[in-house]
């Protein structure tokens, strides 16, 4: 099947100005993006952000209100689902309950009358997902994880140009989910098929994807490699939805030493790297990830960092590998700090005064006009919908 893959060159998937509205509700709003062939692409967003609708339009199960879908140079917008070289792994798996595992996996090939070496190919595919011994079982006799893998096998046996995965791990427990993440990544690399993975679980997206597109309210907020969008989020939504962030709003004062800009927040001055923003004056929103901050006794190590806040510990929780602090700034903002448990030391006590320290090179700057509370509502959202 790898041979079949290289023989036909795989095509990039293009979504051009794709819009889907239901009456006055816009589910997907003028979305344009290119998904590179052979890559693992994740569409990440909270429930209701339009990611599943986008996926269903690519599959042909939903008709776009306007816009186009192209596979390479070919426009597939108006093709029926069965006319597209695209297969889906459904969230509910949707295995045919009246057929055994073997027939489920053979379904696509039989419909396409592509039955040369059918038996061999089905068994090879079942071996790939390590379930060959269950070929004659019915789907209802399989566990959730096994059904999930059969759903995957049933889709990729057709060597589609694009494989769509709709929250495929949503119904699995945590341990199995971790295991399947590795499995999915392995299969993607082995087959070279373009995977488009829809999920609301940011960790899942970051573990597996080459490229992540963060979606919110029918639009793409930011797209890029996982590390890139994590370290350099451009919008408050991305900063708050993908991991956690401490965001500050301030006024640029002017240049400072070491290629920095001085920014006034409340009545304190902080430094942000000049390279992080095109702005040279006015209001600016910047942020620091909780793990890039550290706490220290007041006035003890201020010299080693170029930014500090003297705050009050509201809460400290010990998790083993790290300590999570909640510190209140003089202007009443709550900061979250994840401090690695490198040296054994006493936990900060509630009400105690501490320095919160960070280096300006770890600061990211958001697009002008960002609302620092955007995306905060999804914090602590349960992982399984």
């Amino acid at each position, binding site marked *: 099947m790898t041979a079949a893959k290289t023989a036909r060159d795989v095509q990039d998937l293009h979504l051009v100005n794709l819009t889907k509205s239901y009456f006055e509700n816009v589910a997907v709003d003028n979305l344009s993006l290119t998904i590179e062939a052979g890559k693992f692409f994740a569409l990440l967003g909270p429930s209701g952000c339009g990611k599943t609708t986008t996926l269903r339009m690519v599959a042909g199960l939903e008709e776009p209100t306007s816009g186009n879908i192209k596979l390479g140079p070919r426009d597939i917008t108006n093709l029926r689902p069965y006319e597209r070289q695209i297969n889906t792994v*459904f969230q509910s798996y949707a295995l045919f309950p009246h057929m055994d595992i073997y027939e489920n996996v053979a379904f696509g090939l039989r419909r396409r009358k592509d039955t040369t070496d059918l038996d061999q190919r089905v068994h090879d595919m079942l071996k790939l997902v390590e379930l060959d011994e269950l070929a004659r079982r019915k789907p209802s006799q399989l566990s959730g994880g096994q059904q999930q893998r059969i759903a995957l096998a049933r889709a990729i046996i057709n060597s589609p140009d694009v494989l769509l995965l709709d929250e495929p791990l949503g119904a699995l427990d945590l341990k199995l989910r971790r295991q399947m993440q590795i499995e999915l990544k392995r299969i993607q690399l082995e087959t070279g098929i373009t995977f488009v993975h829809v999920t609301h679980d940011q960790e899942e997206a970051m573990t597996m994807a080459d490229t992540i597109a963060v979606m919110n309210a029918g639009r793409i907020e930011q797209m890029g490699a996982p590390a890139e969008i994590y370290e350099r989020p451009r919008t408050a939504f991305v900063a708050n939805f993908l991991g956690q962030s401490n965001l500050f709003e301030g006024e640029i004062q002017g240049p400072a030493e070491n290629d920095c800009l001085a920014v006034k927040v409340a009545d304190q001055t902080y430094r942000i790297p000049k390279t992080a923003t095109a702005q040279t004056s006015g209001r600016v929103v910047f942020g620091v990830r909780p793990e890039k901050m550290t706490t220290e006794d007041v006035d003890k190590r201020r010299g080693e960092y170029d930014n500090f806040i003297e705050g009050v510990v509201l809460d400290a929780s010990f998790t083993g590998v790290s300590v999570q602090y909640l510190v209140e700034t003089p202007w009443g903002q709550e900061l979250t700090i994840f401090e690695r448990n490198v040296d054994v030391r006493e936990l900060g006590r509630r009400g105690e005064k501490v320095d919160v320290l960070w280096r300006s090179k770890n600061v990211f700057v958001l697009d002008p006009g960002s609302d620092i509370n955007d995306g905060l509502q999804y914090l602590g959202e349960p992982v399984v919908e």
Partner: protein
Amino acid sequence: MQLIPTSSKAIFTQPLRNGRSLTPYLLLIPGLAWLGVFFVIPFFSLLVTSLMKPAGSSVLDGYVNALEISNYMLALQTYWPVFAKSLLYAASATLLALVIGYPLAYHIALRGGRWRNLMLVLVIAPFFASYLIRTYAWKTILADESFITSALNFLNLLPQDRILNTPLAVIAGISYNFLPFMILPLYASIERIDPRLLEASKDLYADSNETFRKVTLPLSMPGVVSGTLLTFIPAMGDFINASLLGSAKDKMIGNVIQSQFVIVRDYPRASALSFILMTLILLIVFFYIRRAGTEDLV
């Protein structure tokens, strides 16, 4: 729990547990009593009657208990063509009801939308009128001077130039009368099919036609089996349609049994015919279910 002394616990829980385990059996009693009085006793009384022989030379002399197996032989010998005809009529009517009912049930279940409940009410609406009245109405609808008959005659579609008093009328009448029994189980099983399975089928290169043959139809088989059984079984024993809509030549086995019981008063023969009919239906149902393999379906 620990606060209660062990002795008193034993005293209080013992009768309670007994009472609880008896409840299901107590609840079964009304049903069992009903079945006993109205099914088991008549069943054996019918069996005994079917083996009786005449007490004298006249019907008025009545019958006495015996073991006349020949009643069955004679009944079969005389009436096997009527059994065959009944089978043919009932099977045709069932098939017709399936052909008419499936698309209707499919439409209500998958495309019904907000009209679904209204359409279901319309399906069972005929039940608000009595069976007999409805069949009489068909007598008018299919009469020789009726609009339908003249229209079909105009198109030269009727070989006998009429519908009433032909087998066609009997089959159409049976189909019509039992159609709701076909549609409702079909609807229930089609409605239960997960629409995502149909999407998965289309996603896996099956067009609408193949999706129907490979997914929808196999998954609705439980409805097809129960719908056809619910139509076929009463149709086999029906006599109203044949007596109102058919000619003397179109009598079904139900008509024979009825006349043997009520007019001829040959009770043993009528009982033997009933038993043969019952056995025939049981055999057909048994082989049909084995063939359809419903136990394999979800």
